[in-house]
Every structure is written in structure tokens, then in C-alpha cells.
């Protein structure tokens, strides 16, 4: 459970891919205006999240216990 808590709140790569897809779709121009505007709004939300991620979060280091003895006695 602590592993989950330590995970960053966003998946950078996933959001980055979504933004690329939105750009492709908007530049392709084959969607209707309502969809285009909702994609654009989603794109802005992603940009904001990514900027906050790049500005904000810190790297966390956790030491795991080594289990050398257990392994060797196996």
C-alpha cells in the first residue's frame, strides 16, 4: 500500500501521449466543432497538469531491506 502512496499522482508518459493524440486530431480537422472544443479544453487541462508535475514534485528515495541471508539459506 505504501508503494501506491508513493506513486506520482500522474502518469507523465500517458498524459504526454494523450496530448500528442489531441494535437493530431485537432490538426487533422476531421472532428466536429463541439468535439474539437472539448478536446482543446482537455488539452489545456493536460498541459496544466504536466507543467505542475514538472515544476512541483520531488523524487523520493526509499531503501529496501536486503534479504541476503534468507536467499542463501534457500
Amino acid at each position, binding site marked *: 500500500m505504501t508503494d501506491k502512496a508513493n*506513486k506520482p499522482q500522474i502518469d507523465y508518459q500517458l498524459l504526454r501521449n494523450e496530448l500528442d493524440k489531441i494535437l493530431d486530431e485537432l490538426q487533422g480537422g476531421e472532428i466536429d466543432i463541439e468535439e474539437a472544443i472539448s478536446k482543446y479544453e482537455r488539452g489545456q487541462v493536460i498541459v496544466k497538469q504536466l507543467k505542475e508535475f514538472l515544476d512541483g514534485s520531488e523524487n523520493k528515495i526509499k531503501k529496501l531491506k*536486503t534479504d541476503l541471508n534468507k536467499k542463501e539459506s534457500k
Partner: protein
Amino acid sequence: MPSMPELELSVSEFVASLNQTLEFAYSNVSIAGELANFRVSKGQWVYFDIKDEQASLKCFGTVFQLPGPLEGGILVKVRGLPKMHPQYGFSFNIQSIQPIGEGALKKIADLLALKLDKEGLFDESRKRPLPFPPSRIGLITSSESAAYADFVKIINERWSGVNIDLIDVVVQGELAPSSITTAISQFNELSDPPDVLVIIRGGGSAEDLWAFNTEQVTRAVAASRIPTLVAIGHEIDISLAELAADQRASTPSNAAQLIVPDRRQAMVALNNDSQKLHRAIEKFIDQTKQLLANKQDLLTDQVDQILSRAKEQLNTQIQLLAVLSPRAALDRGYAIVRQSTKLVRSGRNIIPGAILDISLIDADIKTEVLKVQLNAKEQS
């Protein structure tokens, strides 16, 4: 000198007692010498002699204790326990073998490289892409090392939001191979494993870096289900573990540079994309507006056409009307005759003395009828 009391023992008792004594006296011994008569039996048991100019010692062990394939003539340091086997006699039971000196190290590494290469362990086709950037890194190194400090420092400078799980290992000496392989399997056995394994060690002598040229470590790296990035020593050092990894970095600092993007570059790219997003929606809206304007033009054109057609029809009707108008007849010299506003079409009911109104193009005349003469055709 008092004489010792005589011990009377069975053979088994003597062998057991001897082994106890040997174990007590040589609990921690390593022997250096040249390897000779090396052979492997049933792919599992290893027999060889270790010797110098005067003496030779029989050694026994398993293939799992070898750093890799060996051959005679190599200088090695053997750690183990002397043992008297109840049936097969005396041998030195090995716990580990370490090559001594750069020549031996290189020779062993070359032999192992040849063997593992044949097995396809270093094949390009085995290499998996590393997640970029990873959200969780499993780091295997010594937490005391400069390599560790450099790696963490550069990661912190470049990127944010990475979780680094560290397993602190021994990176040189006899314990290093098992310490490193244990860490690799520990990460692989986690129910929620990291996205990538990073194994790093700073520069050192060939002997210092030896663990990363052992079969044990090289195989563990190749077998890792988690993709691996290995960086050992300086740029010029290439270990077998690095060759078996999915990606190799020239130094621990280089590993940190390869594994995460640069925050500043990412920010520039993001700002670019943000502008692209704005431009794309503006262009989209412009295009939609243009489309609308085109439709409006089309609509106007069509309404214009309908109107002008209606006008044309009207004109034709007006002209027709003009042709049919009685006034047109007056124009041509005809006259209209009325009797008290009623149009006179026939002379039958007109009698002399009747008052008629005659309209000409330019005058109205009131007149009295003097005589009515019906046409012959009308009379009949």
C-alpha cells in the same frame, strides 16, 4: 612433556572428528594458486587442482560457484573448507573462486563472453525498450558509493516525480555477485515491481569490477523480467553484465541522463505543444467560420436567383398586359363606344337619337346617333 592419552576411535568417528577440527581450524581460508585439471561432471560437479611449484590440492565444488567457464593455467583465489569425505578422501570444498590479476580476469571474462554470446544472451533482439521516463526505478548499488550520489544528484537535477527504491549491495569482493543477484531477484519478485532496474558502480580496478563479469550476475541481468540499465566503471570499461542489459550507460552519471528526460527541455517542448494546441483550435474555428460564411454566400446567391426569376416573370406579365390593354387598341386608331358607361359591342340595340360616348386616344366625344345600319351578315 606429558604424553597425550591415547584416543581410540572408529573410522567414522575419526573422520567426523577430523572434519570438526578442520572446520574449526580453517573456518575462513582462501588459497591462491594456478588452476589445473579442470573438469565438469554431469554439468553440475566441478573437479580441479590448485597448485604452486611444490604442492597440489584437490578441489571440489558445483558449477554454481564458478565465476564462469574456466580452464587450466589461470591464477585463482579459492575460498572454501577442507574436508575429508568418508569415501572419496580429502578435498578442498570450494565456496567461491576468484581470478587473480588482470590477465586471469580478462581470460575468464573472454571465455565467459564467448559462451554467453553463443547462447544469444547479448543479442540485440533480446533488448527491450526502457520506459521513458520511468515512474519507479529499482536501483542496485552501494549507498556509500560516489556512483550512487552522482546518480541521485543528476536524476534530481533533471526530473521530478521519480520513486527510487534502493537495494544496498556489496559491489566488489567475493560477496558481490551473490549480493547483486539477490537484489535483482528481490526486485523481480516484488508484487508491484519497479519499471526499470538500474545497476551501477563507479570506476575501479579490473578486480574491483569483477563481480559484473561473473556468469552469475550476467545471467541474472539477462533473466530479469524488469528491463535493465547497467553502468559499470568508466567509459572504457565494458562488463558482461552491461552487454546482457537491455541498455548500457557509459558511467553512473550517464545512466541518470539516459533514464529520465531533462525537465527544462520537457518544459520547452510542453510550451511548444501548448502553443500548437492554441493554434490548432484557432485554425479549427477559423475554418469552421469560413465554412459557415461559404454557406451564407450560397444561401444569398440562391435567394438572389429566385428573386430575379420572379422579376423576369413579372416583366413578361406586364408586357403581356400592355399588349392586351384596350389602350393599345386606341393607340392603333380604334375607338371605344359606350352607352351610359356600358360598352357597345353591337348596333342591334342602338336606335337613332341614342347618346353614345366615344373614346379616342386623345379625346372623349359625346355624340347622337343619326342612323343605324346593321351589316348584312347581322341582319340575317
